[in-house]
């Protein structure tokens, strides 16, 4: 893959079906005699083709630009001038590709839309081609040519908003799997078992690949599955009722370099032709009708030349590289200031008043609520001797938290334990701390929330399993009874709860796309070696910041590199990231374009809102949509779930509930055995997670006699190390037991839709 690889494009000679008439109008050859240069400025590479006035290719090359598009073009131009005699005022230059817009005017060039350019080259070189797929680094395009001869028409489809189906999609996962590019290009598709990998988003594909790797799936199978996902995504989104019929041309870097991707295309297209009974010319081997020209990379640049030759000779006259050089050295930095937005604040005064209102969030009173005093943390003297308390626990995926509330719902104690993957040990660690605080004090009620609520309910003797939304809403409404919306931005997920009359009426959980979560912010901060707690200060220091693009996290990463290159500093980039976070949270992940619908009072909570810069942008964003809105930060941003659970436990106790809490001794003495074997592997999907069964001795445990790992009465089973909720069900036997239970309930409580599904389409006499 070096820039020395020059391929001579030989028009028409290489096409196997020369009998088809060429539909492209013959170029009006420019009499001026100057050379014509086509430059394709793509998202990962730049390519040029230099041709004589009659279209003969004199030179061509491609190189990766490592996000320095303009610099690479300048380097190309210098080379073309010195080695091939490209001359200002005489020769002409045409640009295409995602980076063409900025660069072309600086050197006098004309911009050609990339699909138009590719189509022009294909029409010229391969008149018998009916379908082209061009996959780029950050986009994918298809071109359908319908009909033949003069009636030939083309339909162009393009997608560049999301990483699914693009080259980045493959490369990102391959990097994670530590596969060098040379190896990746040789990896195959045929003959491997394929696994389901999300074809929609590069970040989810990476997560899927990780899960597969953990489950022991070979790297070869994962890569083959990635090729499958890319072809599927292209066919699913960019065919729109057209059948890609022969001949077929695959263009662009990924199609050229990844042999496995070519194989995947051949596999799918040949099958599609069989299914749709497409007649193939002669007795041609179907696979041979899908071709990847060795100069597949240059079609867009070559297309520029074709189009240039049809244009009047005053169009696109090369003006020399001086302006471009000035822009790289000075212009873009000046423009940076012009284009970029101001910092996260208007003036010092505004920042100070913001900090005065929100600055002390956490256990202080400055949570944006101003006038409301927040409960204080327990003093050391009180701890160890608390009176009667309600206990709430929140078992999350990374930490477990617990709080004790007085009957008046004042927070008396809070603690947390980092999850060790064994919920029994996590619970023991938590309850040891609670015991230290409560001493001999009475436990009025115990409620648990988070993923552990169903697993641990019986084992701990919890009185109320509380769903996350109820826990958060209860905690939020306790401090802010008139709240309309709770926005919880955690490390990996974004939750938006919309409240109405004190009930959670709508709930948004981001699950389709990774954009907008705290982990991404943290990842970038880590890359700049900025500790999380200093991030907000850094972001506030920025006097200006780049305008980053909302949405796809994969593209955001390359956007950041691009901004860095333009000279933006770490603080400024972090400020820019904080500034787009609200857009990603509310619009991209939450799907809420109209905040007016949501309400007027907003509670921000979750770990990411400990970052004051994020709070600032959130507040500014919400106020920009609803000027009269009130935005507050939950005083116990991280513990809200546990506090809400404890409140539910207290309400339950007030209504006369008598706690079933097992007691600290019993929890400390919980004895369990762990089994991890071939019999504990999950078979619900091909990932086959290696789960562990933790069997806990409990007098009233119902046992699992039907299990492959039988469990006697007096034991309760907890399943861990599953990667999705399906894995919490042991196997088909348990599914039958569960289904039988559900069926019994469903039979007792009818659903009219069941009647419609069963009887409305019946053909026999009713």
């Amino acid at each position, binding site marked *: 893959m070096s820039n020395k690889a020059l391929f001579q494009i030989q028009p028409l000679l290489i096409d196997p079906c020369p009998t088809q008439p060429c539909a492209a109008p013959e170029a009006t050859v420019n009499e001026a005699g100057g050379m014509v240069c086509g430059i394709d400025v793509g998202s990962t590479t730049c390519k040029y083709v230099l041709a004589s006035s009659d279209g003969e290719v004199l030179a061509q090359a491609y190189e990766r630009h490592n996000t320095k598009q303009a610099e690479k073009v300048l380097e190309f131009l210098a080379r073309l001038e010195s080695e091939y005699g490209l001359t200002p005022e005489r020769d002409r230059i045409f640009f295409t590709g995602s980076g063409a817009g900025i660069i072309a005017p600086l050197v006098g060039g004309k911009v050609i839309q990339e699909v138009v350019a590719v189509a022009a080259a294909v029409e010229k070189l391969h008149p018998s081609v009916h379908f082209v797929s061009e996959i780029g680094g950050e986009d994918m395009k298809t071109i359908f040519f319908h009909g033949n001869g003069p009636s030939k028409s083309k339909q162009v489809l393009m997608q560049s908003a999301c990483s699914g189906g693009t080259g980045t999609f493959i490369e990102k996962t391959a990097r994670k799997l530590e596969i060098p590019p040379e190896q990746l290009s040789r990896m195959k598709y045929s003959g491997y078992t394929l696994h389901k990998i999300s074809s929609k988003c590069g970040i989810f594909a990476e997560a899927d690949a990780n899960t597969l790797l953990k489950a022991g799936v070979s790297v070869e199978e994962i890569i083959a599955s990635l090729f499958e996902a890319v072809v599927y995504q292209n*066919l*699913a989104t960019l*065919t*729109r*009722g*057209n*059948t890609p*019929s022969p001949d077929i041309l695959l263009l662009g870097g990924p199609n050229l370099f990844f042999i496995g991707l070519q194989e995947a295309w051949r596999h799918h297209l040949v099958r*599609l032709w069989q*299914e*749709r*009974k497409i007649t193939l010319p002669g007795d041609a081997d179907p696979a041979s009708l899908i071709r990847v020209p060795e100069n597949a990379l240059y079609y867009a640049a070559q297309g520029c030349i074709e189009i240039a030759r049809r244009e009047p000779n005053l169009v696109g006259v090369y003006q020399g590289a001086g302006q471009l050089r000035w822009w790289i050295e000075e212009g873009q930095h000046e423009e940076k200031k012009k284009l970029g937005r101001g910092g996260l604040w208007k003036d010092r005064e505004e920042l100070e008043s913001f900090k005065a209102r929100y600055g002390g969030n956490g256990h202080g009173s400055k949570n944006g609520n101003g006038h409301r005093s927040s409960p204080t943390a327990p003093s050391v003297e009180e701890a160890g001797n608390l009176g009667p308390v309600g206990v709430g626990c929140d078992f999350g995926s990374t930490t477990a938290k617990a709080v004790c509330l007085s009957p008046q719902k004042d927070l008396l104690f809070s603690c947390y334990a980092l999850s060790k993957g064994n919920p029994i040990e996590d619970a023991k660690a938590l309850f040891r701390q609670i015991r230290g605080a409560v001493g001999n004090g009475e436990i009025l009620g115990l409620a648990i929330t988070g993923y552990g609520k169903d697993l641990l309910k019986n084992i701990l003797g919890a009185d109320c399993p*509380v*769903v*996350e*939304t*109820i826990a958060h809403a209860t905690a939020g409404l306790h401090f802010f009874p008139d709240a309309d919306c709770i926005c919880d931005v955690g490390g990996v997920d974004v939750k938006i709860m919309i409240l*109405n*009359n004190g*009930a*959670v*009426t*709508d*709930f*948004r*959980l981001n*699950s*389709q796309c990774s954009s907008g979560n705290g982990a991404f912010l943290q990842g970038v901060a880590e890359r700049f070696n900025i500790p999380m707690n200093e991030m907000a200060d850094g972001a506030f220091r920025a006097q200006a910041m780049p305008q980053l693009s909302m949405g796809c996290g994969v593209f955001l990463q390359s956007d950041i590199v691009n901004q860095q290159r333009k000279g933006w500093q770490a603080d400024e980039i972090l400020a820019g990231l904080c500034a787009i976070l609200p857009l990603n949270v509310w619009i991209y992940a939450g*799907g809420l374009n109209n905040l007016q619908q949501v309400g007027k009072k907003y509670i921000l909570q979750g770990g990411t809102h400990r970052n004051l810069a994020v709070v600032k942008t959130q507040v500014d964003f919400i106020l920009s949509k609803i000027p009269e809105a009130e935005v507050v930060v939950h005083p116990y941003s991280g513990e809200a779930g546990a506090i809400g659970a404890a409140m539910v436990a207290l309400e339950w106790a007030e209504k006369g509930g008598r706690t079933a809490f097992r007691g600290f001794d019993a929890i400390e003495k919980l004895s369990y055995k762990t089994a991890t074997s071939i019999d504990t592997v999950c078979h619900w999907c091909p990932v086959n997670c290696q789960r562990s069964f933790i069997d806990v001795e409990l007098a009233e445990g119902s046992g699992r006699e039907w299990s492959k790992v039988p469990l006697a009465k007096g034991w309760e089973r907890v399943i861990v190390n599953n990667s999705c*909720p399906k894995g919490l069900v042991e196997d088909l036997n348990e599914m039958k037991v569960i289904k039988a239970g*559900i069926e019994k*309930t*469903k*039979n*007792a*409580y*009818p*659903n*009219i*839709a*069941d*009647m*419609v*599904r069963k*009887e*409305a*389409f*019946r*053909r*026999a*006499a*009713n």
Partner: protein
Amino acid sequence: MPIPILQTWFAKKHSAAPPIKDRSQLRVGIPKVLNIWSTHQFWVGFLKALGISPENIIFSSDTSEEQGREFGKGRGTVDCCYPVKCMSGHYGELIFGQKKKINILLSPMIHSLPSILHGHVVDTVTCTRVMAGPENIKAGFMKENDVFVENGIVYASPFVSLGDRQLVSGQLYTSLKDILNLDPDETERAVQAGYQALENFTTRARQRSREILAWCAQNQKPCILVLARPYHMDTGIGHEIEAELQAHGYPILWLQYLPGDADLMNWLFAEDMRKGRIKTPFDISDVWTSSYSSNTNEIMWGAKVAARCPWITCVIRLSSYECGMDQPTYTPTQKIVEATGTLFFKFGDLDSTKPAGSIKIRVETIVHYLAKYSGSIIGRKLSWLSADCPLPRTSRERTPTRAMADEARAAEPKQLVVLH
């Protein structure tokens, strides 16, 4: 090999003897989509009356992503309405996925619908996008090659105004006469049979809903009403969200089959009629003046019933991604339902993928509120209605199914509101 159907099929018979219209061997496939979900038995009754064997009437299966992938891939059209878009999978399944091939693919363009609100509203027409859906999807199978012809299938897409009884025979005769060799009289008889079959089913379903409400009244238990379009009963479109609530022990009603019995409706709407806000229980002009769209009208009416009926303590609103018909109804339905303190939860933007994680959390949330507030909601709404509730109210606790059987036996014949 030419398949002996249609003109050729009948032509042979013509030449031999007087037409014996033996259609028993014709196989007719119907994509189970859109408003077929509320007109199902009309088509069964209609085709059976024309002599098509019951086993030769084939409905496609419920929508699923697999169905779309296997049979509809690449035939999709530019349409953001998933219930329309998914039709290509249904067409494909009927064309390619049948062991015994079908002869006719019947995909009616239903322009208007029979409705319980007929006569009380301006009109009962369907969504234009839904009505024209068959045309849109057909294109994907004819754009390059005529897939129907290739597979020996005749594509039949009659334009039919099922809400306008007088027009239907003529419409179906015109568009199907050549395909099925119809004469006007037998078409009229078949249409009559179709309406009868549909009415039989609808009556039974409404009776079942009444039994559920009677059980709720007897035991002072809550139930849930689903406000959605008929095709949200398709497990691939509504994603069985209501079934997850049912599994927590709540009976589920759908607005399409709410009991329209005069005694019950007059009891629920007595106050509104007394004050002159509405003329009949089926009058929705107080909340929805542009009452042209059949499903939209019924959704608004369902919201009014839910707001008043004491045992409906919770409404689940289902809506598909970017549904332009639903858009203007979101706020009114929510306001109507919540006006009496009835719980209202919306699952919007439903698409091909079931967001299982967030649905589970939302269902648990809803169940929490149902358990917490149902008792007080029932009490409050009962206090606003007169004491002469037509549903028997005792405190006996029985399982709903047993109670319903008893109730059905004991129930006197009720005056059903006539649809047409």
